[in-house]
């Protein structure tokens, strides 16, 4: 833990200008992630900018979708009737995350920005290309049971830890990002990056930018969606493999599908190929199994995490069966 200064921003403009002056500062909302990282000496910001006074907690119907302010708490979103009726997949993904105490604190903007749980990233005594570019990846030949099998590189196999980001990815959510010149909108599918040779670059958020909200576009079969999370214990644990799915069926056939995987990718893992394989196919277990095969295409195990590949397939099949029931 490093000494740091603390300031409260009373407007988005102040928040952004503070960040301009102090580029190594970090925003803090719920603090459930940044404080852990600071205690572990992984993050050493000289300044924390508290953005809790900015409001940004609205959850409302807007033309074309449901808009969620970046500072809305996980628990508020999970409980919101609009979310529960239009996108059960979001509510379930949130409720299957963390613990009630954490969900009451954590903001949705912070959730989609949370850092990996890879133990090498979090232990400064070990090598990690994400934390310290060029130092090597401890996980590839080490303790990698929880790490990714999709989107990995020779430089990093760290799993993206968020559950709800997987749901957002399945739903084509759009991030609203404030910057000194205004706001821009980034589809979540273009937001996260795979590690490649630069695992320290995780997403499209620039220095001094702030996520202010998330727009989830309406989906006519959004109500037929769910999130299924396989994990070692019943609660308060990260995914071994998870799936956010939505399914549109008509006359026993699949008319539309959304499939994204969690716990197995270096970013929330949308599989449009699996969706395409389903559309037009009969809504049966056999079809779901074929789609699941497609969803994990290209997956690579690193020893301890080999099991995630067959497990992820089973999760996809079960999730699709759940929304077909």
């Amino acid at each position: 833990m490093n000494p740091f200064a603390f300031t409260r921003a009373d407007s988005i403009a102040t928040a952004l200008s503070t960040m301009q002056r102090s580029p190594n500062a970090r925003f803090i909302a719920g603090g459930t992630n940044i404080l852990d990282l600071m205690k572990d000496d992984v993050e050493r910001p000289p300044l924390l900018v508290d953005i809790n006074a900015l409001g940004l907690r609205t959850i409302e119907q807007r033309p074309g979708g449901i808009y969620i302010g970046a500072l809305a708490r996980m628990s508020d979103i999970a409980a919101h009737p609009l979310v529960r009726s239009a996108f059960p997949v979001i509510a379930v993904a949130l409720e299957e995350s963390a613990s009630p105490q954490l969900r009451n604190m954590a903001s949705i903007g912070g959730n989609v920005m949370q850092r990996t749980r890879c133990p090498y990233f979090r232990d400064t005594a070990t090598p990690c290309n994400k934390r310290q570019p060029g130092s090597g990846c401890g996980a590839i030949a080490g303790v990698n049971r929880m790490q990714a099998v999709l989107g990995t590189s020779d430089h990093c196999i760290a799993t993206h830890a968020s559950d709800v980001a997987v749901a957002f990815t399945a739903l084509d959510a759009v991030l609203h990002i404030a910057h000194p010149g205004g706001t821009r909108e980034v589809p979540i599918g273009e937001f996260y990056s795979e590690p490649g040779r630069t695992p320290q670059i995780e997403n499209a958020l620039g220095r001094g930018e702030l996520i202010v909200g998330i727009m989830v576009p309406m989906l006519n079969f959004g109500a037929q969606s769910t999130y299924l999370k396989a994990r070692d214990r019943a609660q308060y644990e990260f995914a071994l493999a998870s799936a956010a799915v939505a399914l549109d069926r008509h006359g026993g056939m699949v008319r539309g599908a959304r499939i994204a995987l969690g716990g197995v990718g270096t970013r929330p893992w949308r599989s449009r190929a699996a969706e395409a394989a389903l559309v037009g196919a009969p809504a049966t277990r056999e079809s779901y199994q074929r789609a699941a095969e497609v969803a994990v295409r290209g997956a690579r195990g690193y020893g301890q995490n080999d099991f995630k590949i067959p497990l992820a397939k089973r999760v996809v099949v079960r999730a699709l069966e759940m929304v077909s029931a």
Partner: protein
Amino acid sequence: MPIVGAARSRVDGRDKVTGGAKYTCDRELPGMLHAVVVPSTIAYGRVLSIDDRDARVATGVVLVMTHANAPRVNENKSSPQDAKLFLLQNDAVEFDRQPVALVVARTFEQAVHGADLVRVVYETRAPQMDLDAGEVATPAQTAGNQPAAHRRPAAQPALASAHAQVDAIYRTPTEHHNPMETHGTIAAWDGDRLTLYDSTQWAFGVRTRLAHVLSIDPSAIRVIAPFVGGAFGSKGTAWSHVPLAAMAARATGKPVKLLVTRPQMFGWVGHRPQTEQHFAAGASADGTLVAMIHEVRNETSLSDEFVEPCAVFSRDLYAVPHYTMHQELRRLAISKPTYQRAPGESTGGFAVESAMDELAYELGIDPLALRLRNYSEVNPDNGKEYTSKKLRECYTQAADRFGWSKRTAPPRSMQRNGMLVGWGMATASRGTHRGDSDARITMYPDGSVVLAVGTIEQGTGSPTVYPQLAAAVLGISPDRVRFEWGDTNLPTAPLAAGSQTAASIGSATVLAAEQLRDRLVLLGGNVPPEGITIEVNAKVDEAEEGRYAQQAFGAHFAAVEVDPDLLHIRVTRFVGAYDVGRVLNAKTAGSQLVGAVVWGISMALYEQTRFDRRTGRIMNATLADYLVPTNADIPNPEVIAVEDDDQRVNPAGVRGMGEVAMCGSAAAVANAVYHATGIRVRELPITVEALL
């Protein structure tokens, strides 16, 4: 309602849940400084240099202690059972998170920051982390509960000619205790006298070891152990941070509080060693056991020898005429393993009771019937009669309550709501131990009583239960008896471990109360103004102890549901009946039994310390990554204490209940998983990859 056995609520319960109970870390002394250990980041090698320049000038930092400036103390063991201490006396590194420096500052936060600023350069050597390749170590001495030479003919060749055989390797991982309250010590010198506040299971043991390390007389040390927030064996000895706090207090001339952080709980304060157990058994067609082999090896550290006495479980349970056992140690670059709740019998019970289940399937006999077939009326190893044994009643009561007779034997034959249902059972067994204990009891003219023993309260209910025992003898309300504990100025108590505390302190309490009662009778019921004080020394009579076999038993029945696709295992029911002698308090006893069942489920399905085998670094040293069950993972365990008036075992009539419900319970879960899935998992914890 008799006083003893009554479900008396904890006298300290309100204080504990409202913050009124003061644990070591809650105590503040005037002028107190805070110390934080700098742990090694390598597992094997040596410290080449330590750059503490930034740390020394950081705000609030008073002292940085390293092997270059630490005062010289006596690191050597005072007895073979002692753990080697790491007190900054040299540059050697023998395990991950070994103390290599200590930063003392005015506040805890300043000390934490100072510790982050200390830069240590190491010469790293390849650590031995492979159990197969580790150097074989020989225990310097076999302690009381370690396997002695057995007295039966060897298992071979009877095993080879047996009608049915099982023969397999069972593995259990390294596990860290992680009590809710981490370790912590406050050291304060007054001239040459040292006062220690310590989160320990044995204030007197801390005093002895510290006197040895600091080369001072034990009488110059007072150890105060107030409430202890769990220990489970990890606080049975004074680990390195205790003398380090005393050294820092002496160097700074101020009281020093040293708290061990959660990640450091995976460092120098002990753990259950990983075990690899070869277990074989042979039986005749009717299930009668003819031979057993139990060969165990467990990891130990480079400088200490700790035996996880797994084979004690097989040695002392079933009527087996031919028996061979062996325990071996392998040295790895790890910290010293130590006692963890039900050492030996929990890990050994997993192997033996899993193998008994396998044998039952091999023979086509019900698993419970197989146990009953091999019921031993005497200790099978030494032929001694038991003080008492109610295991048969345990089997019957637990099986009836569970509904075991409704079980269909074939794997995957029971299903519910699309889930695979598995029912498994196992036997519990654990030797009873007792240590010498003193006690002092005083009755005042108003009829109030103070009972004093320098034991500790780690959640087992000491201040609630011992007054019940004394009150029953005196024929008064337990509310009239106040218990004083947690101080070496009080009468000497033994180590609060090994399920021996109630036997030891309970016996001293009964003897003291009986003498007080007799004195009171002599005085015609009149208490003189100064009160009546009785001091007793309840010594264990070795000859008397050896007359009978003393053992607690039990029967576990577990139900699991396994998702046929996702393969998630959920324990849906757990019923256990335990043969523990006299129950002193139904509430606190129930809590202990339930706690042990939870530990058993945790061992079966969740706990494992994960090392990077290349470096020896522990990679899950947090409670987010080192899994223990949540409430959602645990059914409401149904525990039955089978009452027994055991007059032979000790004056308190107890056979120990803190651990027995953990012995074999992991096997009950593993056997249920087999019954549900048809997959026999011989390595703990059982996670999804084993079932895929």
